[in-house]
């Protein structure tokens, strides 16, 4: 029992305590964790480098808008078309982005035809009329007789309307007609009317003249 007090034994025990335990080998899971942490560290460093580069790119592509010009345009729209609804209350203090958003909102409203089935209905009707004319006058490899297709489509618009509306909602943001397209459509319709008046049914030419005469209502027709 007292042998533990022997100075030689005491010195040996002190040496044993001071000596480091043999290094433990890392397990497979610990190795994988190390790899993941290293990969994460690398990703973070890459992200940091990108962020440092981004401000330069933004500066290059930022478009400079003249706020006063945008506001003038917006007020001109509102003055000419007082029925336009507002989305933002914009003033000289507003950001260019807000004014641009309001301008876009005005243009979308002007490009949406509310009556007779809207733009979707108008496009569908126009397409059907186009198919009818092409198969009749230009190209009809299947020998289809599609006379009256445009008229039947117009009459059945109630059945087409839900589908057309659904499609308009699905692609809604990009499907409004710009003023250039609307003007082109109107010019096209006028050209077609004059063409049919000059080359087709002479009644169209007569009707074009007569429709703008001043009507003289016969006596006793007020109840009709």
């Amino acid at each position, binding site marked *: 029992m007292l042998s533990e007090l022997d100075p030689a034994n005491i010195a040996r025990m002190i040496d044993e305590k001071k000596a480091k335990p043999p290094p433990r080998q890392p397990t497979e899971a610990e190795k994988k964790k190390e790899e993941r942490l290293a990969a994460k560290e690398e990703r973070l460093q890459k992200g940091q480098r990108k962020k440092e580069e981004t401000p330069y790119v933004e500066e290059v592509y930022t478009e400079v808008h003249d706020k006063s010009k945008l506001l003038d345009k917006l007020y001109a729209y509102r003055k000419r078309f007082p029925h336009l609804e507002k989305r933002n209350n914009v003033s000289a203090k507003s950001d260019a982005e807000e004014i641009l958003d309001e301008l876009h909102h005005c243009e979308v409203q002007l490009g949406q035809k509310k009556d007779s089935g809207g733009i979707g209905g108008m496009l569908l009707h126009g397409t059907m009329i186009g198919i009818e004319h092409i198969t009749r006058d230009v190209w009809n490899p299947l020998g289809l007789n599609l006379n*009256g297709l445009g008229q039947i489509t*117009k*009459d059945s618009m109630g059945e087409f309307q839900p589908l057309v509306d659904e499609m308009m909602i699905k692609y809604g943001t990009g499907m409004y007609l710009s003023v250039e397209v609307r003007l082109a459509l109107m010019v096209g319709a006028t050209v077609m009317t004059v063409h049919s008046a000059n080359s087709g049914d002479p009644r169209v030419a*007569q009707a074009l003249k*007569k*429709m*703008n005469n001043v*009507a003289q209502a016969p006596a006793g*027709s007020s109840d*009709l």
Partner: protein
Amino acid sequence: MGETVGSFLKTKLVNMGKWIAQHSMGEFDDLPSVLDKLTEIEVTILAEHLAENKSIIIHEDWQALLQRVSDLPNVPSLVPPAIQYVRSEQSLHEKFWRYMQLFASVVNSNAQ
């Protein structure tokens, strides 16, 4: 300046649609809106056809009227059944032919 022929004819045609819809108890409720979609020039052409075939109106010839209307392009498909309905209702005949007479006479009027 008064109302134009095109506008006047369209107003009266839509009125006729409303009158038929009112009497048909729901069968032709869509008729006014269908007629309202016609352009003024389409309505004027329709009236032109009536003016050219005044004998149909004078003799109140339903068969010829239906034939004529069915042959015309741009006439809504709801119109021939509406005429058939009016034909089947004796009490509506007098006013219907007054409408036809009105269209035929106004299309050739010019108050200027």
